[in-house]
């Protein structure tokens, strides 16, 4: 094969040399007729040959051609222009906008490109460069604010952190709401390793994050991203696409002479927002200052005047640094072209010891084997390592916050080199963060291959047969450990006594295959497009996890260094297979009416065989009214389309092996097996959701202004969830078909170009979305349903009840009387906690808005994205943690005597004359006011709004003149990009875009739960792009 490639390359080179003689250099400029502006990136091609060049950033090109050649000038949205070379050496061309400018091509399911106007559902496409220019490692984070109706929540701001993406608010109560990720037509895995695969379930995804797998995709290699949200699109991808699909097309080799480009980016990051702590009252209890600072609760007297204070948290977080290098080599002929891309990324985080390194290599070949056969193949190899730290309950963040300000936290070792504590007790306080990041290692390694090949055969000009196969294979391994002297190894009731080690090796192999037959033939005004296909998916996943305690030799973290009698293993082996048969018929009439129907039959291995196949259809209509006679004449109306769609989509069980009872090996005396807490359900069937959508797209003034509005509803029924049951069933949980959830919302996308002239242009793109979910009935007719993993600090958790949404919170509250007055305990004058969970708040925002502005002045470009959100509640568990320790600024008035407004619970509370509270409390003395009698519900911050400058980029491209006589360099541009530079919010904590769990959690996960996690750091990137 290698030899063949070489021969082909050599052959084409000789061919080129042969024609050199008769050629001359043609150069010129390509501009737009609309505003006279230059068009960079326009293609100039010699008709009938593979020779092509692109105009540079100044709209200039130069090409070798014979006088008999015909040059074809083309650009997206413009009508191509042809011109014979003749005797000219300079040809300037003015391209006219295509009247059907919105006639963009959208890559739909299985990579089928279709005219946008024929699509009856919403599909938003983003350019890869827009994503790559944000310089984010995890491209998902660049989508926040750019995609209407999608919410991306990073787990933490640490390097290599996972991000959760949920389209249209999600519908699954406790299952997977993640969209399907498809790269070049083949689905890839976006799994986030789950703690549940560790021995003893780890920390239930609360303390460790593992990165979501889609982040392995190199943003620089993305050509376009299309987000499919509507029913038809997901119906074609089958059950995996029921939560939407993110369809990524990567860059393919472009024919032409060899091009080499290199770009780099250097980034500094820092954390600038911390939770605020009070600096008035010192450590101690009941107003007595513990001079020696032997406590980490702060109910002492005021700090003495002139006491030395340390900025412990400020000292701890450092400046992160990242460097990224990308090299691309591409070229070839029409028959065979290749592209290789290599990217290296090395990053250190703001928390010492954290970092992310990756090496990403990709090779893509595009070949035209014959006139009728095209073939594409790509191979992408990724190797990465993440060094991380714990988050949540015993994280460095919480420890740094509760470290006494009068003590220098940098002092983390005793003179003997042991862990230095404040209280003198290893198990009584959190690890010093410096010590913790050093001595509690936590990392993951990942090696992955993504391979993809597709062959298209066109036996007839109206028929195309396409076969695609993809493989996504990776091995991930990781280790998380606690040192023998750590808090976790010494706290009460610990399972980590003597130090502990959790390791795992995970292997996933996802193989997919698709066969498609597409027929497209026009019969006069009828333009049908029919696709029939079948696909197959085989997903195999194994995890070997090991756990042990008691190190022989301290500070050496290997399973070989663990007391063998404590070693335990957990083995997971999951195989899921799916086969689908589908068809779609798109019937177009006269360029203005399109009817599209799809149907899909899925067969799955995760349902009992009696229920294993299910069928679901969809239908959509696209009506391009601007094509109608009278409207077509209107000069101000460029485009108008009305669309609607309705579809059913089926979902199988996302988890394998839940139809039969499972037995779990027991560690108790005598060993043996006992039934798992989750009972099998042999009657499980597919769940269905009905999704309907209407939309209106319009463009005005030669496409200078356009909008796209969608209104949708989805109704999910017989959802497969695992509610808890009465133990009288013989079990604790069971996957059952139940519950009915409705979600409604709208999305609006507006684009405009207020200014467009020769030197200056201004483009705006804005999107707004709102989603409201409502639970119509809960599993098993129960009153409430909660996601237990979210119950991670105190008594607030994600809990839903009939009528609430699936993003609702529940919390403990104080007791109140009929009039809503607080009930007070007459003995101590304190409010009384009602120890039952009540619905309290909702994490879903009222509306979220993304606003992108792009300004171009000559060779300068400035663009920025504002991400805005109104409403939605956040549980500020970090603040509650600080509050109960006397660290919250809310406790500064502790010396003020007060009578808590309320009435005694003395039997008269609901009468006409309740007894008013008259007990005076001075929290300074009665510190239980903070530590015991707090109200959990008070820490759910209501209606949190934010405006965040997600990213801003200033780029400068050197004018082409600069390289006119340069043989080496062809282009050069410089850029500066800032990420998360500014956040304006009414939220009292660090960052309201938080996740208390990792992306592995089910339902809506831990979004909206802020507990001891590092917010997104501010980043400043600068770099250059060079073309050779």
């Amino acid at each position, binding site marked *: 094969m290698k030899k063949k490639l070489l021969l082909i390359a050599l052959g084409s080179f000789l061919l080129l040399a042969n024609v050199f003689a008769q050629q001359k250099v043609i150069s010129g400029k390509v501009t737009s007729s609309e505003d006279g502006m230059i068009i960079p990136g326009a293609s100039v091609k010699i008709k009938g040959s593979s020779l092509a060049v692109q105009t540079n950033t100044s709209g200039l090109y130069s090409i070798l051609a014979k006088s008999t050649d015909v040059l074809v000038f083309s650009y997206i949205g413009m009508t191509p222009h042809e011109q014979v070379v003749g005797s000219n050496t300079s040809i300037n061309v003015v391209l006219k906008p295509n009247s059907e400018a919105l006639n963009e091509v959208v890559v739909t399911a299985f990579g089928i490109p279709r005219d946008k106007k024929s699509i009856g559902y919403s599909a938003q496409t983003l350019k890869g460069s827009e994503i790559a220019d944000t310089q984010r490692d995890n491209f998902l984070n660049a989508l926040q604010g750019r995609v209407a109706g999608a919410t991306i929540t990073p787990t933490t701001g640490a390097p290599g952190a996972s991000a959760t993406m949920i389209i249209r608010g999600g519908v699954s109560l406790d299952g997977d709401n993640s969209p399907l990720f498809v790269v070049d037509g083949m689905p890839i895995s976006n799994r986030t390793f789950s703690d549940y695969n560790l021995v003893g379930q780890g920390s239930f995804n609360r303390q460790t994050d593992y990165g979501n797998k889609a982040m392995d995709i190199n943003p620089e290699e993305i050509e376009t991203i299309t987000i499919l949200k509507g029913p038809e699109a997901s119906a074609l991808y089958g059950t995996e696409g029921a939560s939407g699909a993110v369809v990524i097309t990567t860059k393919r080799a472009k024919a032409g002479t060899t091009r080499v480009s290199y770009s780099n980016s250097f980034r500094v990051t820092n954390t600038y927002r911390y939770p605020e702590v009070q600096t008035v009252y010192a450590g101690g209890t009941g107003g007595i200052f513990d001079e020696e600072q032997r406590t980490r609760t702060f109910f002492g007297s005021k700090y003495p005047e002139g006491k030395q204070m340390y900025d412990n948290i400020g000292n701890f977080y450092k400046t992160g640094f990242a460097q990224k290098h990308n090299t691309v080599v591409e070229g070839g002929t029409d028959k065979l072209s290749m592209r290789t891309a290599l990217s290296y990324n090395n990053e250190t985080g703001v928390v010492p010891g954290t970092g992310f390194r990756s090496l990403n290599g990709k090779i893509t070949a595009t070949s035209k084997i014959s006139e009728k056969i095209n073939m594409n193949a790509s191979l992408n190899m990724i190797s990465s390592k993440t060094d991380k730290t714990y988050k949540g309950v015993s994280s460095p963040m919480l420890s740094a916050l509760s470290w006494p300000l009068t003590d220098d936290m940098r002092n983390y070792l005793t003179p003997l080199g042991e862990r230095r504590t404040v209280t003198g007790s290893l198990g009584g306080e959190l690890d010093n963060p410096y010590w913790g990041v050093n001595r509690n290692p936590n990392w993951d390694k990942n090696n992955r291959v993504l391979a993809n090949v597709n062959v298209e055969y066109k036996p007839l000009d109206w028929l195309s047969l396409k076969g695609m196969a993809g493989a996504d294979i990776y091995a991930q391994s990781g280790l998380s450990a606690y040192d023998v002297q750590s808090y976790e190894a010494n706290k009460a009731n610990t399972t980590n006594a003597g130090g502990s080690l959790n390791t795992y090796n995970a292997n996933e192999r996802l193989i997919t295959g698709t066969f498609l037959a597409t027929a497209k033939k026009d019969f006069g005004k009828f333009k049908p497009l029919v696709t029939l296909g079948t696909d197959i998916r085989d997903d195999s996943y194994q995890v070997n996890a090991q756990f042990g305690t008691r190190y022989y030799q301290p500070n050496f973290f290997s399973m070989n260094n663990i007391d063998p009698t404590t070693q335990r293993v957990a083995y997971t082996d999951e195989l899921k297979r799916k086969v689908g048969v589908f068809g779609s018929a798109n019937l177009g009439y006269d360029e203005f009416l399109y009817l599209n129907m799809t149907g899909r039959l899925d*067969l799955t291995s995760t349902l009992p065989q009696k229920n294993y196949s299910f069928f679901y259809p969809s239908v959509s209509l696209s009506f391009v009214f601007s094509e109608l006679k009278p409207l077509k004449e209107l000069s101000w109306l460029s485009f108008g389309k009305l669309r609607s769609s309705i579809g059913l989509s089926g979902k199988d069980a996302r988890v394998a092996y839940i139809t039969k009872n499972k037995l779990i090996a*027991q560690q108790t005396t005598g060993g043996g097996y006992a039934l798992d807490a989750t009972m*099998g359900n042999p009657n499980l069937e597919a769940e269905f959701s009905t999704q309907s959508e209407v939309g209106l797209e319009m463009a005005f003034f030669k496409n200078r202004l356009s909008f796209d509005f969608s209104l949708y509803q989805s109704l999910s029924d017989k959802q497969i969830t695992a509610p808890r049951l*009465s133990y009288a069933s013989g079990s604790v949980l069971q996957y059952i078909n139940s519950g009915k959830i409705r979600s409604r919302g709208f999305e609006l996308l507006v684009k405009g170009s207020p200014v467009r002239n020769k030197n200056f242009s201004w483009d705006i793109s804005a999107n707004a979305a709102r989603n409201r979910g409502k639970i119509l009935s809960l599993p098993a007719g129960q009153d409430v349903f909660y996601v237990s993993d979210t119950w991670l600090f105190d008594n607030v958790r994600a809990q839903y009840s009939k009528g609430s949404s699936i993003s609702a919170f529940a919390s403990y509250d104080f007791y109140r009387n009929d009039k809503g007055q607080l009930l007070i305990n007459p003995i101590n004058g304190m409010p009384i906690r009602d120890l039952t969970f009540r619905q309290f708040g909702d994490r879903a925002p009222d509306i979220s808005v993304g606003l992108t502005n792009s300004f171009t002045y000559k060779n300068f470009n400035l663009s920025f994205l504002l991400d805005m959100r109104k409403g939605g509640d956040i549980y500020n568990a970090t603040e509650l943690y600080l509050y109960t320790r006397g660290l919250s600024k809310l406790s500064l008035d502790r010396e003020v005597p007060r009578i808590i407004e309320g009435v005694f619970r003395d039997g008269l509370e609901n009468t006409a004359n309740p007894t008013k509270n008259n007990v005076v409390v001075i929290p300074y003395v009665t510190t239980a006011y903070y530590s015991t009698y707090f109200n959990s519900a008070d820490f759910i911050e209501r209606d949190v709004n934010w405006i965040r400058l997600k990213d801003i980029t200033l780029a400068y491209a050197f004018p082409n003149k600069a390289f006119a006589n340069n043989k080496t360099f062809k282009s050069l541009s410089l850029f500066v990009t800032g990420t998360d530079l500014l956040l304006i919010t009414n939220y009292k904590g660090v960052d309201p875009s938080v996740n208390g769990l990792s992306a592995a959690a089910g339902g809506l996960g831990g979004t909206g739960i802020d507990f001891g996690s590092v917010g997104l750091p501010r980043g400043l990137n600068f770099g250059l792009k060079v073309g050779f």
Partner: protein
Amino acid sequence: MKKLNILCAVFALVIVSSGCKKYLDVNTDPATPQTVNSKTLTPPLFAQMERGVQFDARYLGGLIQYFGGAVNVGEQHGWIAASDAMGEIWRTNYFGLGANLNLIIEDSQAKQEYNYIGMAQALKAWGWQITTDYHGDIILKEAYDLNRYVYDYDSQQDVYAEVVRLANESIANFTRTDGNGTVVKFGPADLVYQGDNAKWIKFNYGILARNANNLINKASYNPAKVIEYVDKSLSGNGDNFIVPNTGTTASNANFFGPLRANLNAYRQTRIIVGLLDGSYFTGTSGAVIDPRRNNMITVSADGVFRGTAPYSSDPGTAVNKNQIPNMYGVLGGANPGPNQGKYLYRDNAGFPIMTYAEMQFIKAEAAFRMGNLQLAHTAYLNGIGASIDFVSALGTAIPSVDRSAYLASASVKQTPALLTLKDIMLQKYLALYGYGFVETWCDLRKYNYNVGDAAGNNPYAGTYFFPTTFFADNGGKPAQRYRPRFNSEYVWNLEALKKIGGDKVDYHTYKIWFSQP
């Protein structure tokens, strides 16, 4: 290429049509078995039995005053809202045992392994008995019905009848000589009786004895039947039902041992100290020192044995050397470390589910009520002797002279004529120290604690005292039952629970069926 595509199409067609079903038939976990036989399911059952009792004993132990130190609301007869605490016996009965026992019966029914079926029925009988004695009304008839999500509660009377039925069925199965249930098959899995059918039959009779003996307040009470059951039950300490604990890891160690460190905060109680130094038997403190004392409890640093009063913490200080030891025998609530501790509070100590001593006291009580004082006295002496032997094996061996001396002492009634119900019940209370939590509670409740039953019997008067105040929700009443498990019933089966008043704050003070006349 055309061929390739045709091949693809053919391949796809083949998969979709014929091979599909087989190709997709992979929904069986290769990492974990989804069916196992009875032998593999049996060993964990025993751990579940002790788990239920021991977890809940953290609260019940305080209520009946085996454990002191005001560690939790147990000593106040209270409850904790929205918590699974005190709901472990519930879990054991329905989840730890229940569903697994159903699998065993299913598996062994097909294989005609009648000893396994007998064992499953015996454990079911035990489970229902202890669960109803602990909770009162429970879900019986609708349990394990997979076609419902609301499970109604049944009366304790129904549960008592079911226990009798199951124990008799179990006895019948263990009596069978046909089928394929061999000792070789059953022995290795049976961590308690090593496949000895005779002992399992005795265990069943022991359950029947408990069942019948709790009914003293009922017209149907039949002491002769109780005696008959006892006589067919455990006949010596060798028949004791003891759940073994290996004690090397946190998973296989005794929940009451230092490795699990659950009892650090608990203190020995005044009532136990008073029983072991003769105070409550003779009226004089220190009159008769029980030979079991050093094995069961621990002396303070100053050489005096002390225990906490109901719902009081340890008033002692290190300086005054009057700190009260915890269950492991150490001061200041410390944990002595793995492999330390004493009595039943050691990592590898087995946990008794039923002992010969208990049976003899049941017999003594029944015989006493029947008026057969001679029979009662013999059983009473047997019970004390068996308890001394049992305790002797759990620490420093008690010399036989000390045993005889105690049996001849003023703490022990020497003639049938002198024997009182109080002697029997207090010796039983002492003998069941540290394990017979639910059984002792049944005794306390059937005699209305220190109030006495309808007939005027009041064996615990002057010995068992209530805490100065009960838990706030109690309305001044002692606890009579525990609530069903929160995360099973209060969250997911509240409708059914409301019908029996389970949503009321003082539900736990409602008298259960057997203690009502």
